[in-house]
């Protein structure tokens, strides 16, 4: 009676029919999967149609906005519904001598439906990823090969300036030249500045010629300007910076209009004196490490030390605690087992909170800096090592203990000869493994203010200084790789 009409229940709701047939797991799975996807689909549709209030309105609007996605989801829901009915029919009428088997496509449709919804929820956009790849190229190149920013050289500046009077009055005289010093004079030394007319079009001012001598020969020379209120700027003509190359004798001459500058009325008493300045900058001396490079190196040292300190402190606290969390040590008494369960519980809770979360708390507690990072890593290390150590204690072989006891050894002798030798390997192995983890964690713990290289890395990223950030990334990568190798090597020899 029931099996015959189970498909009617499946028309009502996918999964119900299977439940009626006694296929509880199958039914619950289909029903919960269906309800989940209906809820997710409605959520995404209503996000596409925020102003609509009715179900029909929501569906119509989201069909307009995302026809592909919306129709595909609706199609899959309908398909799932129909396949659910067919599945029920197949389950109700198994072939003769066959095992009861439903439709595989029923669940495949559900998986596809959830995948499509997941694709939309996580905003996957492959075309954008491909299209905007070039945007990533510049920063990526800088991060991948940042070493130009790792070095710098001292610079030497050669400069000389000449006075120019704006408006009317006595023209300033030629500056006095000193032998061996760079020298610049202007011709004429008086004129009117560039202006904007009523339509906002620039009107060039008096063209002056700057003559320079005594500069470094064949070198690029920048022209700077300082207006009467002291603003200094590099001169541009047609948007380009004005530069000139000196000749073989270190001389040049260049023409420019007196540039436009805004001088508030009454800001300057007396004559409006401008300065034209020629300047050469060139690197001198040997290559030396740049400021970001030195900063990153010192932060990297800080990072490694943080990891070490957290490991040592973690070991010191974890060893005694691990005995309290070892079943074979604590069993026997009611109090012992309570302590065992309490320790296990605390360790599991502390361990499940990531070091970076602990760092956020520690920063509030002791302020920004490496100490906060050490606190965070130590807390997490104690819990992790405590658990690993206690498992090592639980795992020791009772045989050697028995054998040493049988010789007439005292309790202390038994511990020294049978217990400790068995624990040395796992203890060392776990501690080195933890050191490895701690250094790795301390590279990123700075991102929440916990000190170390992560702190400066994030700073450089925010300043869009991808080269400096690249140097930090390189240091982190190399340190982690070396550490990984070293710790694996040591552990291999220990065990």
């Amino acid at each position, binding site marked *: 009676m029931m099996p015959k009409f189970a498909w009617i229940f499946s028309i009502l709701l996918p999964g119900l029919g299977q439940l009626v047939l006694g296929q509880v797991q199958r039914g619950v799975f289909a029903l919960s999967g269906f309800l989940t996807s209906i809820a997710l689909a409605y959520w995404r549709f209503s996000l596409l149609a925020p102003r609509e209030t009715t179900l029909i309105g929501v569906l119509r609007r989201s069909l307009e906005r995302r026809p592909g996605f919306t129709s595909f989801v609706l199609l899959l829901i309908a398909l799932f519904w129909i396949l659910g009915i067919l599945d029920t029919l197949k389950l109700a009428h198994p072939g003769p001598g066959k095992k009861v088997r439903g439709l595989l496509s029923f669940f495949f449709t559900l998986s596809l439906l959830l995948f499509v919804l997941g694709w939309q929820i996580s905003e996957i956009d492959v075309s954008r990823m491909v299209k905007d790849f070039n945007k990533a190229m510049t920063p990526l190149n800088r991060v991948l090969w940042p070493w130009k920013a790792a070095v710098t050289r001292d610079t030497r500046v050669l400069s000389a300036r000449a006075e120019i009077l704006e408006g009317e009055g006595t023209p300033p005289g030629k500056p006095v030249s000193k032998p061996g010093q760079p020298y610049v004079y202007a011709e004429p030394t008086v004129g009117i500045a560039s202006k904007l007319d009523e339509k906002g079009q620039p009107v060039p001012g008096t063209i002056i010629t700057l003559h320079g001598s005594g500069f470094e020969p064949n070198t690029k020379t920048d022209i700077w300007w300082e207006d009467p209120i002291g603003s200094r700027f590099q001169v541009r003509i047609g948007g380009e910076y004005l530069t000139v190359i000196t000749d073989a004798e270190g001389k040049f001459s260049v023409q420019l209009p007196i540039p436009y500058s805004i001088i508030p009325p009454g800001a300057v008493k007396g004559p409006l004196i401008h300065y034209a300045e020629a300047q050469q900058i060139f690197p001198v001396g040997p290559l030396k490490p740049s400021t970001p490079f030195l900063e990153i190196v010192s932060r990297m040292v800080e990072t490694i030390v943080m990891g070490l300190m957290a490991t040592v402190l973690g070991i010191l606290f974890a060893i005694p605690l691990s005995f309290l969390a070892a079943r074979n040590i604590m069993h026997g008494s009611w109090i012992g087992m309570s302590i065992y369960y309490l320790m296990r519980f605390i360790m599991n809770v502390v361990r499940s909170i990531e070091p970076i979360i602990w760092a956020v708390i520690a920063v509030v507690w002791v302020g920004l800096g490496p100490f906060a990072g050490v606190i965070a890593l130590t807390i997490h290390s104690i819990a992790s090592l405590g658990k690993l150590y206690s498992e090592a204690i639980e795992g020791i072989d009772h045989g*050697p203990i028995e*054998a040493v006891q049988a*010789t*007439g*050894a005292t309790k202390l002798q038994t511990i020294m000869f049978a217990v400790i*030798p068995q624990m040395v390997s796992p203890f060392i192995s776990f501690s080195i493994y933890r050191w490895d983890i701690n250094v790795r964690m301390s590279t990123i713990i700075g991102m929440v203010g916990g000190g170390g290289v992560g702190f400066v890395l994030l700073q450089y990223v925010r300043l869009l200084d991808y080269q400096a950030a690249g140097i930090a990334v390189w240091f982190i990568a190399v340190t982690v790789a070396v550490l990984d190798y070293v710790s694996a090597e040591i552990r291999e020899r220990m065990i």
Partner: protein
Amino acid sequence: MLEVQHLTKVYPDGTVALKDVSFSVQDGEFLVVIGLSGAGKSTLLRCINRLIEPSGGKILWNGIDVTEADPKSLRKIRRDFGMVFQQFNLVHRLSVQMNVLAGRLGYVSPTKSLLYRFNEEDYRLAEEALRKVGLLEMAYKRARELSGGQQQRVGIARALMQQPKVILADEPVASLDPVLAHSILGYLEQLNKEEGITVICSLHYLDLVQRYASRVIGLRGGQLVYEGSREDIRRMTDDQFKEVYGEEAERIAPPSLAGGTNDA
């Protein structure tokens, strides 16, 4: 002389491992304990030196009750009982030499040995013990680098360090192949014959029992069900064997190892 009287062991979970077991062992005997796994062989051997606390009964060692001994005298009693285990029970991380020296722990001062240091005399004894089992050149290797048979020989050397009067061997050859089994039992027989050390050994294979035992006791379900002399064992039939081992038991050892007693 060792006398076991009405020995009973009940574990905390209620398992009765030994039930009213009584027997005695004369000095110089090679006593073999047979029985199925779980029959109480291991418990019996461990009760003798109180690695397991007996629940009832008495164990008299040269007239002294072992079950009543305080920790200090128990330490002295344990020195007389060297022990050899199925799983060898060496400390894998320590050197062979240090494992052997551990046999001396019942003699040396507790404080000194905590730093893994021993007397000159102890080192000399260790050398001698290792020479006896033919492993002198392995002294500085780590115990885990040795093969199973070698590890068991180190186990015997460790027991010898106690200068024992009795060796308790708990299935010493169950983890070894038949050839090694004869070699290990050969060492025990040699110690028994040449140095007069009493051996109490649990074994599985009837063929080995017939070859080495001077007397046999059989345990089944924690009770003593068989006691026989050397001659009794030689004549022991498969039916008697099954009485100890239960109906499903078969001879396992290949005929080539039966030592000419195939006709049994």
